[in-house]
């Protein structure tokens, strides 16, 4: 069975196996809106996954992702796969993976945390669990409840 019909991309990135419902957050992480792209962006929401249940997929033409961006995607979709498309084929494929300590990806959710008080430091977290992600602020020691709502 063909999963779906979308315009194939010549060069670009497919972000596959996104947690169902997180595609729009992935677009937000990519910084994509209707005014700032002039190549194809396809968004698939709630499509059956061969692996488990439902997934979202985002395909962006003429773009490869830097490490920061991939790490942010890992925060909201730890099972996501990054497929780099070159000349219509999957040239590279890898699984997102968080480093044990992440910096400057999310704000601390604790309003009284020193990192939310105009100090010259980037928020930093220890990754205590990958899936589901569990982050602990290295400053105030609190765990972050709402990750997608605090993405930088």
């Amino acid at each position, binding site marked *: 069975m063909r999963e779906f019909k979308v315009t194939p991309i010549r060069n670009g990135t497919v972000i596959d196996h996104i947690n169902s419902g997180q595609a729009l957050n992935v677009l937000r992480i990519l910084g994509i809106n209707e005014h700032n792209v002039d190549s194809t962006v396809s968004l698939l929401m709630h499509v059956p996954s061969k692996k488990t249940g439902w997934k979202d997929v985002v395909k962006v033409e003429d773009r490869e992702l830097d490490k920061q961006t991939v790490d942010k995607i890992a925060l909201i979709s730890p099972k996501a796969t990054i497929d780099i498309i070159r000349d219509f084929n999957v040239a590279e494929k890898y699984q997102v993976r968080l480093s044990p300590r992440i910096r400057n990806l999310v704000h601390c959710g*604790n309003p009284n945390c*020193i990192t939310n*008080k105009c100090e*010259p430091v980037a928020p930093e977290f220890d990754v205590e669990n990958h899936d589901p992600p569990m982050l602990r*602020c290295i*400053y105030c020691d609190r*765990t972050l409840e709402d990750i997608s709502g605090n993405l930088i």
Partner: protein
Amino acid sequence: MNFENMDVVSIRDFTRDQIEEILDKSRAMLPYAKGEKVSRALEGKILGNLFFEPSTRTRLSFESAANRLGARVIDVSQTSTTSIVKGETLADTIRMVEAYSDVIVLRHPHEGAARLAAHFSKKPVINAGDGAGSHPTQTLLDLFTIQEEMGGIEGNNVTILGDLKYGRTAHSLAEALTVFGAKLTFVAPETLQMPKDTVDQVKKLGGDPTITSDIEGVIADTDVLYITRIQKERFPDPAEYQKVAGTYRVDREMLREAKKDMIVMHPLPRIDEIAPEVDSTAHAKYFQQAFNGIPVRMALLTSVLGVEF
């Protein structure tokens, strides 16, 4: 072990062995803390007290500890208030105090402030409380008190009573006591019980805490009764506060059920949690506990300043 230049931000930064060494050093400090012996071990050193919140007790106990060992104390809190109000960052203030002193003691209203200060300062930073965050010297003096009064920590039934939800000192204490093999009971009204995060942490460390709202049911088995403050502000309804405060008030009546050698601890200041009539009983150890802040802080200061004692 070498503690020189170590920051004391959270009790979790210490291994069990390191804590034991600090407790041993604290014991060695006792005669000096009481003024029975005199030492100038920290002569020539300067401690910078940087308090962004009033906390007379903690500030004075660091000052006393430093003075007992011949160090000088500068209180940056007062002189720097103006620049702080003008909006200087903590990162900048810390680098100024760092230039004036050999060790910085920080009390700050925001959680994580001490970790930030430690980041910016090459001189050791001791956390004297950051917001609702940790207060490691309190935990150390609590451990020291139990060790001294009970002859050890392991195997004791420690009942922690009061506001366990918001009182971060209770959280660090629970974790540290578990590392030392104490058996824990958490007594609080349901709305103020120990948060899941801490209970999970205690279990991960091998503990199996009893969780209850009934002090009467556990008092007879308790070796150490640790009471924390129940803050009025936490209750939307003053009547509810009165009820809770009344239920958990420790008085002679409650202590009738207790073991003879059970000790009662409290970080002070107390409001209504312990009736004054308890003070004259052999159970009351909270003033001793407060005094223990001195030898423990003396031990920490010599350790992080790398001074042999």
